Structure formats: structure tokens, C-alpha cells
């Protein structure tokens, strides 16, 4: 199952340990994470469910391509990293 890592800059607002999640897409994996940590959703996604402008999500060492639909596919050993962009602070 994919593993999600969340930047300490975010976990200082919403505690969230490194977690393995279910899902074949970034959207499904994040939805699974948000079931466990509901408050995290509003920090990562905007009101319409897209990635916030100043949040980045990488799968392994690549930035996700679909920032709105989050349709990038995942393999079982993939690692998802959620962190803040350097802009926007």
C-alpha cells in the first residue's frame, strides 16, 4: 500500500503520522488519509477539492501532474509526500 509523508510544517497544525493508505490514485489515497485525519483535508485541498495553490504533492520524486483531479495513478510501493510550496508563505 502507498505510504504518505506529511511535512512538519503541516503536522504542527494537524498531527498526522506517516501512514500507509489504500488507493490506486492520488485522490483515492488522500481520501483514505482524510478519513483517518479529517481536519487535514482543508489544509491540503481548497474548497473545490483541488490541491491548494501553495501545497505540493509528490509521488516518489515527481510532482503530481493533475493538481485539480488528482488522477495520477499509484503503485503499491509508491511514496506520497505532502509539503508546502516555497511560495505563498
Amino acid at each position: 500500500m502507498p505510504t504518505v509523508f506529511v511535512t512538519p510544517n503541516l503536522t504542527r497544525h494537524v498531527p498526522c503520522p506517516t501512514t500507509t493508505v489504500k488507493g490506486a490514485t492520488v485522490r483515492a489515497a488522500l481520501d483514505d488519509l482524510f478519513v483517518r485525519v479529517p481536519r487535514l483535508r482543508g489544509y491540503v485541498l481548497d474548497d473545490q477539492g483541488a490541491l491548494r495553490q501553495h501545497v505540493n504533492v509528490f509521488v516518489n520524486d515527481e510532482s503530481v501532474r493533475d493538481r485539480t483531479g488528482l488522477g495520477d495513478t499509484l503503485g503499491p510501493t509508491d511514496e506520497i509526500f505532502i509539503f508546502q510550496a516555497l511560495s505563498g508563505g
Partner: protein
Amino acid sequence: MARTKPMKQTAFAGTRKGLFAFRRRGLHWALAGEPAFLGEPVSAVLHDPRTGRIFAALRLGHFGVKLHRSDDNGATWREMNASAFSKDEKKMDPNVDPRTVEKKGPSVDMIWTLVPGGAEEPETIWAGTTPGGLFRSTDGGESWQLLSSLWNDPARAKWFGGGYDVPGIHSVLIDPRDAKHISIGISIGGVWRSDDAGSTWAQTGNGMRNAYMPPDKAGDPATQDVHRLAAPLADPDVVWVQHHNGIFRSTDGAANFKEIKKVKPSVFGFAVAAHPHDPKTAWFVPGVVDAQRIPVDGRLVVTRTRDGGKTFDAITSGLPRKDCYDLVYRHGLDVDAEGEHLVMGSTTGNLWIGDRQGSRWTHVSAHLPPIAAVAWSR
């Protein structure tokens, strides 16, 4: 519900780097405890006189808009659900920043003002946001509903950004005689009013004049850049407006306004505070016209009228007389419940308290982060 324990009079300053509280200590005003949300931008603060709760809206640079509430005078805080647009609003937005909205739908960018509802509805809180959404909570901020009646009004397409790239609702006036009567101020969209608790809305505010549109649009109520609305509790039919290019006053609940001219040193500014009990008294913080937005001649003054706008005092006592470049934003001035003390904060991080109805000002801090909003405890 029981009101929280009364708080010693406190001046709150919501800043770019946290929420600061000041209380009188002996003859001086001093920081009361550690700042809350240190490092985080605070965009609005409210001490609710009905419940004693404190609300603070954050605008995190990366992680969006957040709302926190304290039920113990600021000792502890709990994150609430912040106001947010639903996905139903995706195609309902004709005008707000087409670069993002038409593709993705709207998201709340900032809670610009938080206002208590009527005395009989202590769990009702209003939030005005950018983009121009008006939200209401009827459960003390636990959940929020967009006033879709206003958001979906086709006339809203005439609103446009002022100060920020998108329009925003910065002022919400709830009539203390009947909380169904609501007036809101929009930069830029003039004044809108509802007489049925927000079910239906109408543009109002005849008599205002703008100097930044083509001449035949100067009197169009929809394009007035109302910087801030304020009304006295004692006579809420009186409404003061600090506007982008003038000062206006209504005596009929914001239906019609009269311009107040020749106020020295300037009629430009962002903030206005209305005396809660004296409908003829109000305070403004003038600046050089919009191109500069600094005090006239580098001298910070507060203008005060006590006769409904016929005459003004330009108060300088305790304020910088030269080389001052402070700007006071629209939520940077507040008067307390008695009408005796004012608090004023600037984008340079200076904070002042005005005693004797703003006749004499005391410099409380020179080293705060830029101040977005101030508020007295109630």
C-alpha cells in the same frame, strides 16, 4: 448557554504574525500573555459580547483559511470549521477571478470580517470573505452556510476587486432592533441590504459618488468602493461610510447617503468607527489620496465629528507629528462598548489606545507585525 467569565478590558490586535492582547497595567497598556497563533496571519478577530467567546480567523499562506474559537478568554483555542464554498457553487460565479474560478470553482481566500448576530440568537455569527461570499453560522461557528441568495444574484456580476484582486465583504451591520435587517459593505460593490434575514437582497446606497469610474457611472450604487461601514447601536438608521474618495452618512438605514466634504486634512481613508450611543459622533483616520495611502504631510491624525459630520476635529495628541508613514486598514480602528476608548493599529505595526473619546492617544507598541484588525473585548 452561560457567558464566559467577564474579561478585564482587552484590546486585541490581529497581525501578520499572530493575535496579541493588551490590558491596562497600572498607568500603561501592556501585552497580556503570550501571543496566540504566533507566526500566522490573523485576518479578523471578534470578541462576542453575547457569549464571551473570542473568534480568530487565520489566513495561512500555504494551508488556507482557518477559524479558531476560545471559550476561556484566550487561554485555549479550538479549531472550528471555517466558512467554505461547496462544489455546488462551481458554475455559479460569473465574475470572480476567471483565471481560477471558471476552472475550479471558488474557495474562500480570506475571512475579512466576523460579526455577531442579534442578541436573541447568540449562536449566530456572520463572516464576510474574499471572494465576495457572505456566510452564516447558527451553531457558534461549528458549521457555516453560504448565503446563496446573495452569491447567485446576477447583479453581483458588477462587483469587482478593490484592494484585493477579487471583491470582498468587509462590513456586516446587524440591526440591534431586529436582526433580520442586515446591511453589508463590499469592496467594490457598494452597500447591499436584506430585510428578511438574508433570504433576499437588494442594492442600496444612493447618493454616494465615485471618482474612479467614467463620469456617467459616478453615482452608480454598484460601483461604490465602500471601504468600511459603521453604525451606532443607539440609532442604527445612521450609517457612516468611509469610501475610497469620500465620507458619506445615511440617516435612513443606508438607503440614501449624503456626502460630507471639506474634511481636513483629507477625506481618503479606510477606517471608520461609530460611537455606540451618540449617532452624531464618529472617528476616521485620513490619509493622502489613494495613490500614496500615507498620512498627510507625514503627520498621523484621527478626525472626529461630534455633530453628525458638520465639523471635525483633527486630533494629534499622542500621535506622530512628522515622518510617519503608517496606514490604518479598514478594521484597524475600534471603539469600545462605552464609546470612551479607541484602539488603532497600523500596517507599520504601531498600536495606539485613544482615551477620552479619542482626544488623547497613547502609543502602546511600536514593534508589532503589520496589523490587519483590532477589536475591543465586549
